[in-house]
């Protein structure tokens, strides 16, 4: 379809000419708001991040924290009703406000997406092979023989057994893991610079998850693609991502390398998420898992100040800074930003909160103990008077 020579030079050459460290994707103060009858839904509110070449950035957050909207914004696929501001740059080129034709050329060729539910994302009436072939023919005129060879190769890369037979199958004849791999094959058909994986393993069981993640990793090594990995599974992030961006209520909470986020979280939300994971390396068997109290906020009425304060165990007192000022991410270490007012002193605050809680618990225990004692005494002192 598209003749490479007919494309603007800057779009073709951008990936190779730039230095290694130039970001493939940079998002700057992205805001995506949807006007609805109930009010303005601030799906993404002031998000900034970059993805460098061959890097995997994990985008983590609860449902409705704006992860998927961010990925749609990168693809320029947001509905017309969305109010978008900020900047999304792919290889230095702004994506927002780009013409549909230019965007179509980017989609699938330079930026590709792997969807969560492969069964829904594959057309039920077309064979898997023809859908993978289509991913190629959308962007290039390839003759039949070459196309078929390429489809076999792709199926082989993603580890589908017996591709010469299975390419003729329909999606419903594939197992869940195979469908997801077929999706990945479609996404990598044109060797994109950026692969957006929107919860690629959520619908799969754990063993298949591992296989699919391994496929993504292998492909990344092979094509030096960058990956934007959207997930709410911290285990997946730990395994695959280089850096992690934790989102809360459409805002960035914390961004840093995997090690920093997992071993030195500087945001109470991240701490909460990590604490709520079942651990096999600590003796937590039989204990209840930690859970972050409360509910994610409505994106129409996000709490003032820090969006997380109503659920935060270490927020300031009422009228304090957490209720008043919206924290913006600031640097903790060169690769680690946190949007918490108390990012630097988080450890102390947790200790203090724990101390307070312990004191309170002791106080409560003392009170009940005293009460029990009193009741006991009363009972013993009781003399029937008949």
């Amino acid at each position: 379809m598209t003749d490479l020579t007919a494309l603007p030079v800057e779009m073709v050459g951008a990936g190779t000419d730039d230095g290694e460290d130039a970001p493939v994707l940079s998002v700057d103060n992205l805001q995506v708001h949807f006007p609805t009858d109930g009010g303005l839904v601030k799906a993404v509110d002031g998000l900034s991040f970059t993805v460098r070449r061959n890097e995997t950035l994990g985008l983590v957050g609860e449902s409705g924290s704006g992860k998927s909207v961010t990925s749609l914004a990168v693809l320029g696929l947001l509905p017309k009703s969305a109010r978008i501001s900020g900047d999304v740059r792919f290889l230095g080129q702004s994506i927002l406000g780009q013409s549909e034709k230019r965007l179509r050329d980017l989609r699938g060729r330079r930026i590709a997406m792997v969807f969560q539910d492969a069964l829904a994302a594959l057309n039920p009436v077309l064979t898997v092979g023809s859908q993978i072939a289509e991913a190629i023919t959308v962007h290039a005129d390839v003759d039949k023989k070459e196309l078929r060879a390429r489809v076999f190769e792709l199926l082989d890369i993603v580890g589908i057994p017996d591709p010469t037979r299975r390419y003729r199958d329909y999606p419903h004849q594939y197992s869940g893991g195979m469908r997801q791999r077929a999706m990945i094959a479609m996404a990598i058909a044109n060797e994109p610079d950026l692969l957006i994986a929107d919860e690629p393993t959520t619908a799969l069981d754990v063993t298949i998850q591992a296989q699919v993640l391994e496929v993504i990793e292998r492909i990344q090594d092979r094509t030096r693609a960058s990956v934007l990995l959207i997930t709410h599974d911290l285990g997946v992030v730990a395994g695959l991502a280089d850096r992690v961006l934790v989102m809360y209520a459409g805002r960035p909470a914390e961004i840093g390398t995997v090690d920093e986020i997992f071993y030195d979280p500087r945001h109470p939300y991240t701490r909460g998420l990590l604490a709520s994971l079942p651990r096999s390396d600590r003796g937590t068997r039989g204990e209840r898992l930690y859970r972050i109290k409360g509910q994610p906020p409505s994106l129409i009425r996000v709490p003032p100040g820090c969006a997380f304060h109503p659920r935060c165990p270490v927020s300031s007192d009422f009228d304090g800074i957490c209720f008043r000022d919206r924290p913006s991410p600031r640097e903790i270490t060169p690769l680690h930003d946190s949007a918490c007012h108390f990012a630097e002193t988080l450890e102390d605050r947790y200790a203090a909160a724990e101390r307070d809680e312990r004191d309170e618990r002791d106080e409560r225990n003392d009170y009940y103990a005293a009460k029990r004692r009193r009741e006991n005494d009363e009972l013993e002192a009781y003399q029937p008077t008949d």
Partner: protein
Amino acid sequence: MSIQPVSETVLELGTEGEHLLVEGAEPRAYTQRQLFRRRFFRHRMAMISLFALAFMAFVCYGANLVAPYGRGEQDLLNATQPPSSEHWMGTDRLGRDYLTEILYAGRLTLTIGFLVALISTTMGALMGAVAGYRGGWIDQVISRITDLFLIVPALLIAATLLSGVRRNGQFLWWDVGDRLVFFTVDIAFAMILVIAFLSWQYIVRLVRAQVLALKEREFVEAARAAGASHTRIIRRHILPNCIGVITVNATLTIAIAIVTEATLTFLGFGLQPPNFSWGYLIYDARGTVGSDNAYLLYFPGLMLFITVLSVNFIGDGLRDAFDPHGKKERW
């Protein structure tokens, strides 16, 4: 009506008698197409009807091969003879073999049915797909035009348009003249256009509704994310998913077109000799009701009845076959 995705691999164990699996044989997984074929072929009425229609088409289009007499061969001495061993359907007022006449007349009837279905379905499906997919003002315009065509008295408009053709070979502002299409001329051609023009509304509505549901499906978004253009999405992803609705409706349109043609011709707005249809034969024999010659009315009527019924049953069979939930045997 449409092909639905089946979440698990579809396993069918076959009909009675073959459901006992051979030991060690693994249950076969069928593709949608195979399942469709099985369901359709097991639909007995549809299969009978398919054969009936195929036979009808064969004898009509192959009339020059199978007809017992030549077309228009008159035998005035044997005029209006009731059915006999020489003339299976008797002879008409000019002594022509009625079976032969009916077979030749069937050509035009069937041609009109098929072509109308083809034109109106193509037109309607495209309009419906565009309306449903694009939405907004395009949808508004197409839907309102469709509504308009649904409420106008179609038969009156058709009659008005066609009377112009009959009077002076003028179809609207277009001089039809003796233009040859297939093997039919002017008025038949005009009739095809007019009937097609008046029967595309239903398919627009059906396809539009289907597309409205389909475009929200994730595979459409996935196609967009892969860089596919709107045209490509409609052509490759939306329309193939509507194939059930479209096919079923096309079949039913054949039946409607045949009946409409017969009606128009019977009312005197349609075909006339030398190119005529079953409708014309009925029109021609309208005075024979109650007389000994009523067979002149019944035979073309019977042919019309069989054809329309067959087409309807085939439509039923297709609909059931496209329905993935329909598993039971049907008559």
